[in-house]
């Protein structure tokens, strides 16, 4: 067990190292920040001066080392465009994305789970099939299209929900939350819904598929043979075993929600990390780009490592360090 943990952590570090090098190299290749910062007015001397000041002409290993030491110290540089420390920018914008992704995850689980269970239990009925087909449509519409349509309906036509921003936010320590104000809650609904729609479909299909598998299993048949009521079978036995892979997938889904949050944040002007990344990419704001890449990698590595370890805890077969398997026993 300890060996497994150590192995996983070692892997995580290696992955982070590779990603940091890639992130650093990639971000140094994207465009020329000097022209973006100085605009058309710059004289050649100004540009040379700026390049020296930014250390753009130092050898790469030097720049990389500087980059890493700074990151470990918590100094992520200063934005070229707004001249504010990147760490501050990120800390400011993180709560927005977290809340958006979190609420979207809740939506998708809250709607996806019941639908998936229903479709699995009632397999064969037309309602279950209809759900399946509808869910395909859910997965087939890009997030930004949903976002646009939602704004058109609820904001412009009905005027019920705000079309941009987070509404009023409350500062709690270093976190800003929109969950404590009515305008904040209203502002969360559409972006989270837009993100959730495709996730609902995925969760529903996953739950359905998993539950169908489980329902075939021998132990279920034995339970039926023993005369347990269907509801008991479905909800306590089958569901429990279905939930494990569903939950781990949700953990990973949370990560992907963050990614698609980029699109939702673009359309709703949601001041989160995704929008920050897009803006930085568009204006070649190198420090922000590198920092977000690195943080994203760290975040996903953390999630994946935790999920792997959880799996190991749950499934004794894995503790020997074998392939990923699925728990089958009751």
């Amino acid at each position: 067990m300890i060996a497994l943990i150590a192995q996983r952590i070692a892997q995580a570090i290696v992955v982070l190292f590779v990603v940091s090098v890639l992130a650093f190299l990639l971000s140094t290749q994207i465009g020329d920040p000097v022209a973006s910062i100085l605009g058309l007015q710059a004289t050649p001397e100004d540009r040379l001066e700026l390049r020296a000041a930014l250390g753009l002409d130092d050898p790469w290993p030097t720049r990389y080392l500087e980059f890493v030491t700074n990151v470990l110290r918590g100094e992520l540089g200063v934005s070229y465009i707004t001249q504010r420390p990147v760490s501050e920018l990120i800390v400011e914008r993180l709560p927005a994305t977290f809340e958006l992704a979190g609420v979207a995850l809740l939506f998708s689980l809250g709607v996806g789970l019941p639908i998936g269970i229903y479709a699995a239990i009632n397999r064969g009925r037309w309602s279950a099939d209809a759900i399946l087909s509808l869910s395909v449509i859910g997965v087939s519409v890009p997030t930004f299209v949903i976002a646009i349509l939602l704004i058109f309906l609820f904001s412009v036509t009905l005027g019920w929900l705000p079309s941009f921003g987070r509404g009023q936010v409350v500062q709690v320590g270093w976190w800003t939350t929109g969950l404590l104000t009515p305008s904040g809650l209203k502002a969360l609904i559409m972006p989270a819904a837009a993100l959730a729609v495709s996730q609902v479909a995925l969760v529903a299909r996953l739950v359905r598929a998993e539950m169908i598998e489980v329902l075939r299993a021998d132990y279920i048949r034995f339970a039926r043979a023993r005369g347990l009521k269907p509801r008991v079978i479905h909800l306590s036995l089958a569901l429990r075993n279905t939930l494990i892979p569903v939950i781990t997938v949700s953990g990973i889904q949370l990560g992907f929600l963050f990614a698609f949050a980029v699109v939702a944040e673009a359309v709703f002007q949601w001041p989160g990390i995704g929008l920050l990344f897009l803006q930085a990419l568009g204006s070649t704001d190198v420090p922000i780009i590198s920092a977000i890449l690195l943080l994203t990698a760290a975040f996903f590595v953390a999630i994946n490592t935790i999920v792997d370890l959880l799996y190991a805890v749950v499934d004794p077969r894995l503790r020997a360090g074998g392939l990923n398997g699925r728990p089958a026993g009751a």
Partner: protein
Amino acid sequence: MLKHTLMGAAAALALTAGMAGAENLRFAGATPALTMDPHATNDFTTTAIFRQVYDSLIGLSLDMELTPALATEWDYIGDNTWRFTIREGVQFHDGSALTAEDVAFSIMRQKDSRFYRSLFGGIQEARVVDATTVDVVSAGPDPILPRKMSRMFILSQAWAEANDVVDIPDLGAEGAEAHSIRNAMGTGPMRLLSHDPSVETRFEAFADYWDEMPGNVTTATYLNIGSGPTRVAALLSGEVDMVVDLPLQDIGRVEAAPGYTIAEAPQMLWMQLEMDGTRDQALETFDRAGNPLAENPFRDTRVRQAIAHTVDANLIADRVMRGKARVVGSASIPGFGGYQEDLDQRWETDLDRARELLAEAGYPDGFVTTMNCPLERYINTDDICRAVASMLARVGIDVRVNGMVWPEFARMLVNGPDSSFHLIGMGPDSRDTQDSFTGYVMTRNPDANEGFFNWALFSKPEIDELTRTLTVTFDEDEREGLYRDLLGRAREQVNAVYLHQPMIVWGMRGGVNAPIRSDATVTLQNVVVE
């Protein structure tokens, strides 16, 4: 932390503002205000925003005429020196008095800014003569310095010293963020309450402003909403009271909504097509077989004239700009010093003539080229470029439109210029035709500060000579004659194919009356909210 205090104060103020029935204005625009340090940027939107907080030395009326502001009088006293008389009784937002020292300090600080080299780089010294007089000495005679001073922003020297921002914040500097980025100490009609560059900027009216404030806005918030449809949705749903970058296609909808109005004013720039005037072989230019052209077609005046006769700017202004544009026919626009109305006649759209000219120049079958097109900084450039391409296709010039985001486009020009054919917006900072020529039409020689922005690499020695003469001429009649000569020649030689001057369009809900000014500044002190 200061930020928290400010946010708390802002929240408290917002509440009290609501309770006292004071007038609050929420207005939104497409681009963020980057920084509140008036010397650290020359970005269009940012300037329009911090103008609420920082006065310029010489002001601008709603008609873009020079008016006394922090300087009440200004005279040229010879020896490359202008003398400015400073207004008395002006207060900064912290109650301290404006002094001649503050003015001199600000002038020297702004002149050192990388962003203002072309405007103020020629200033050598700002001398305090007495408590109400400052002399500004330049390297050479500068007849249009007062016009330039409408972009000279005055801040408090004491405040700058106390907050360690005597030098303009250095980019890429480690450590704490410079104080002047999100805080301000000016003399303007509004006091800065808080500034979050990508989200919102909040203001509060300054009770002791030196000028009268005909409007009734007591608090205001500027919001950055990048996406066009979102911005319009916010206006129509009431979340904001006013939008300063109203997309053209949404004008009809806003006008049709009950109570909503739009205001428009011509922008102080115009769009033009620039073509390589210097290279022996043009970039990205080929004959129909795919072989690079041995000679640069754009150097031939006949080719440039052909293009001028092909591109129908009226049709573009009508269909692409939906009528919200004024076709331009000379290298100057109304409101600029030196503008000549009778010379503002665009070339006629005549495809046959164009084909004749092309054949004469040796291109009877036309040729293939690439046009670089900046997206997202000017209005509807994507459609303009594609329309131009489709028009040129008719006379045999096959254009591939290469759309680029602004940082890329800027980089391409600044590092080269690496473009032989592009669309660009042109509007000299000083709003004087002289600057059109010194900055954009003279042969490019950055060391001599000539043709600094001449990305077209247009080069005609006679025009250079005339321009040099203009820069040292003070006699009004003589200047008039020189302006006319220059504008005529430039048009004949087609220094660029002028297109149109876009209109700035604002949308407001009923009850909001905001007079519009051509530099797109919302002059909050003049806004009336019901």
